[in-house]
């Protein structure tokens, strides 16, 4: 799962598409990125440190065969392997396929071949890219040689790509930026490799959520009622978690409600927009059956309490779009607190 990786960027601003109709769900680009940081251990560590010196090492299996890239355990006996063997930086193409439109991050940023390459001295094949110019110049059995990265860092991408030995292209291929490097003491070996991962998605919200977001752009709080249990959800649900049916009947709610529960944020964190301490609270709007998370400002953090009556503080109308951020925060109304029994079943 993505959850246990650190995120370096995550945007989820929902905007209207140019061709949308009232019925088309809203969608927006969603970009996820993180640096995959991995320790290499003794076997792969040996491999990447050799790459940094522009050497390729394999490892000898229990049957004497040399595995390149090296494997930590023998595939047949499961025995830990330790006997490294140098192999050449030249070899033979075992199989290939043509990549006419390189994707982001691939080793060569112009049409190229993927290839399984058996390096001289190795018995297994390495997967990498060949800069051949055109598919017509590729063939099984052809000889290829490593093109090293200008500044090897101890990473598989120190092998920038492979070139045909016979007829290499005249110009160097465009390549993606080199991988980032973990800081380490001068002269010490590479123990960690870093691989940036960036994925792009088109994120869509459900038809029910789209009605709600479009309502927010008009300053309206649109909830929907479950046809089975009658509960009112804001934001509305693709399906009621009790009944498994989409919510349908539209219900407009006021911008007043109560704090059901809250926490005082005292700890600063990356991306924080307000200076701590401040209050993040569950707000149950009048008439709703589910609270949502928002900020409570306009009083001392220590004064916020369960059952406190609050009202939305809207941003200026010209700043509104399809987002709950149109409400800057909630503020106390000064009315008497709601009795505990009135919201106990919403906690």
């Amino acid at each position: 799962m993505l959850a246990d990786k650190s995120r370096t960027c995550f945007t989820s601003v929902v905007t209207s598409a140019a061709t949308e109709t009232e019925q088309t769900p809203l969608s927006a680009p969603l970009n996820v990125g993180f640096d995959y940081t991995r320790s290499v251990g003794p076997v792969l560590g040996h491999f990447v440190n050799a790459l940094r010196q522009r050497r390729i090492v394999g490892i000898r299996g229990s049957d004497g065969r040399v595995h390149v890239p090296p494997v930590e355990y023998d595939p047949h006996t499961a025995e830990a392997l330790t006997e490294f063997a140098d192999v050449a930086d030249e070899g033979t193409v075992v199989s290939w396929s043509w990549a006419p439109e390189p994707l982001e991050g691939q080793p060569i940023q112009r049409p190229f071949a993927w290839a399984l390459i058996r390096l001289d001295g190795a018995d297994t094949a390495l997967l990498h890219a060949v800069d051949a110019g055109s598919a017509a110049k590729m063939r099984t059995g052809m000889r290829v040689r490593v093109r090293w990265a200008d500044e090897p860092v101890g990473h598989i991408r120190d092998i920038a790509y492979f070139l045909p030995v016979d007829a290499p292209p005249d110009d160097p291929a465009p390549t993606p930026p080199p991988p980032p490097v973990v800081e380490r003491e001068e002269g010490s070996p590479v123990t960690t490799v870093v691989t940036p991962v960036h994925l792009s998605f088109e994120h869509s919200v459900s038809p029910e959520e789209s009605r709600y977001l479009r309502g927010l752009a008009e300053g309206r709080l649109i909830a929907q009622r479950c046809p089975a249990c009658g509960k009112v959800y804001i934001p509305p649900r693709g399906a009621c978690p009790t009944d498994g049916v989409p919510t349908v009947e539209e219900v407009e709610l006021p911008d007043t409600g109560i704090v059901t529960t809250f926490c005082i944020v005292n700890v600063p964190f990356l991306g924080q927009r307000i200076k701590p301490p401040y209050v993040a609270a569950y707000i149950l709007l009048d008439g709703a059956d589910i609270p949502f998370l928002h900020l409570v400002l306009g009083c001392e953090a220590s004064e916020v309490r369960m059952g406190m009556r609050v009202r939305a503080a809207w941003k200026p109308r010209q700043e509104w779009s399809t987002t709950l951020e149109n409400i800057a925060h909630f503020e106390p109304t000064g009315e008497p607190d709601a009795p505990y029994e009135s919201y106990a079943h919403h906690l």
Partner: protein
Amino acid sequence: MNDVAVVGFAQAPCVRRTHGTTNGVEMLVPIFAEVFEQTGLTKADIGFWCSGSSDYLAGRAFSFIAAVDAIGAFPPIHESHVEMDAAWALYEAWLKIRMGEVDTALVYGFGKASAGELRRVLSLQLDPYVMAPLWPDSIGIAGLQARLGMDAGLWSEKDLAEVAARSRRDATSNPFAQLSGDVEAARLLEEPLVADPLRAHDIAPVTDGAAVIVLASVERARDIVERPAVITGIEHRIDSPVLGARDLTRSPSTERAGLAVGARDVEIAELHAPFTHQELILRDALGFGDDVRINPSGGALTGNPMFSAGLTRIGEAARQILAGNASRTLGHATSGPALQQNLVAVLERG
């Protein structure tokens, strides 16, 4: 131990793109209703729920949690999830029933592959040290595998086109298929290579979709449907992740799983082959002759919903028994690059 049978199966239409959310709720709500209708069961009758999907496809952490809204998961249910094709979720559910912990289970898989760039997203299932940092896409890897077989004389471009043509013809009778049509192999071979040695027809389409299967112990199954599809064997195996160390023209994991479940002597087999040449590898690994009818649904080449295409194969194999068309069928699912992991299930009329 309890024997286990498939008693219900439904699928969402395979489509290039839905407007729906990546949590699959819009696709799942109608097909849950459909299997409840088929079986007469209600949500309260289901002992265990298990799903297959992927956060990488959705671009969101814990994306499968939102999908449980489609169940109506409050009050709390007995639920689990695999980050694989839901065929492996079915295996988990099968175990729960075998162990006598529950006597019914509902298994579902879903994926909105259109939300991202599928062939690039799939790079992240590769070895993270020496392969994934190069972002080798799924089509590029399949091309390496296809060429190995061509160079070895195991199959030709024509053989592959024939697989595609037969799949599309079969899909004309499958209302859920994304691609279908009556087309000759020779005609397909006139199309350009899109990723030499592969043409468009060699590659399963990018598909949004979902599927659901209801399992029951054989005792319960007989009360639910007339002809339950009893799972007489189910086995899954895995091959090395080191692509350059495997003989990619074979599938030892399928071979072993097939032997374990008695894969021979089936009438119909639904094979999960996202590339034409992979169907040929799988047929060989399972020891099929010409008497076995392969993929009457059209197979994954005519609709490949990520994380439910394998479950759909088992569902289609079961449907042939539930509908009284066959008495012994096989469903296969694959996961990972170049047929790395394989699951085989044999179903018989109970």
